[in-house]
């Protein structure tokens, strides 16, 4: 094989490689049930410092991705807060992640709906990408070992939480 042929083959391989990489990286989808939930640290929405899903290892965590500009998020926020008030203890918490949102708007949202569960901030959307979300709101129920047990792409209602999430919690509470 001449030098010119070798260069041409290498060029074609490089183009094919780039296209393959592009397709694979674009097609990387989100979490599947049973997989470990991403635990990258994120800044807290209020009060400074950082937090992570890993901080709640040993407890059930309902990770809720939301944003203040998202209308369905406003509709589900009261249901999440109500569920939190009824179930929050040493074994369970809702963990809000404000994604691709202005921090001031996010804090105003928390205040407006009186949300008492912990809130993290995902301004650049990296955490949402790690979870493979396709939008907001999305909810992931993470078990005490850090594995995803349930995921909901879209808003959850109080009825849904009582029917599908509560039975999984210790004692099958509702």
């Amino acid at each position: 094989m001449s030098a010119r042929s070798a260069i041409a083959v290498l060029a074609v391989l490089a183009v094919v490689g780039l296209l393959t990489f592009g397709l694979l990286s674009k097609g990387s989808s989100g979490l599947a049930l049973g997989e470990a939930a991403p635990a990258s640290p994120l800044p807290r929405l209020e009060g400074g410092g950082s937090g992570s899903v890993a901080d709640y290892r040993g407890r059930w965590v309902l990770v809720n991705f939301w944003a203040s500009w998202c209308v369905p998020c406003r509709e589900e926020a009261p249901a999440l807060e109500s569920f939190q008030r009824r179930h929050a203890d040493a074994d369970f918490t809702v963990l809000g992640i404000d994604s691709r949102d202005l921090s001031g708007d996010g804090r105003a949202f928390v205040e407006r709906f009186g949300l008492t569960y912990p809130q993290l901030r995902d301004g650049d959307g990296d955490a949402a990408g790690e979870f493979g979300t396709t939008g907001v709101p999305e909810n992931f129920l993470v078990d005490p070992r850090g594995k995803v047990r349930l995921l909901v792409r879209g808003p959850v209602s109080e009825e849904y939480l009582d029917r599908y999430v509560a039975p999984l919690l210790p004692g099958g509470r509702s």
Partner: protein
Amino acid sequence: MRARTLLVPLLTALALLAPAGGAMAATPQTSVSEVSSEVMCPVCGTLLELAESPQAKRQKVFIARLVAQGRTKEQIKDALVVEYGTEVLALPQGSGFDLSAYLVPVIAFAIAVIALAIGVLRWRRAGDPPRGEGSPLATAPSDADSERLDADLARYDL
């Protein structure tokens, strides 16, 4: 008297300039549309100036607030980076890996120009008639060729 003559216009000028300086502090340094043409809507994945999503509208309100405060375009872009990360910038930064976005096209253009120049030179050389002893232009026709040429010309001699 002369000092007083100079002092009056000087003080008048200062008095006129003072309010202008104060007003300049509140004068917008940039506009929403100018900033929007250089930043992304993180949710839509398009330039903010083209986006109409609820998130984009909130982002434009945020920019408008900073414009009203007299912030410069760079200050506003910095504030957006704090909120959304560097991916909010539509234009690559001029440092680190992002610098390659500016360098690669320049280098590629330079390589293309050099390759074109080499190609043109080779093409011109290939098109030139060979020179030297073996060249038909460099050798005189033989006697036989001269006779045949004269004969051919004589046939066309009208």
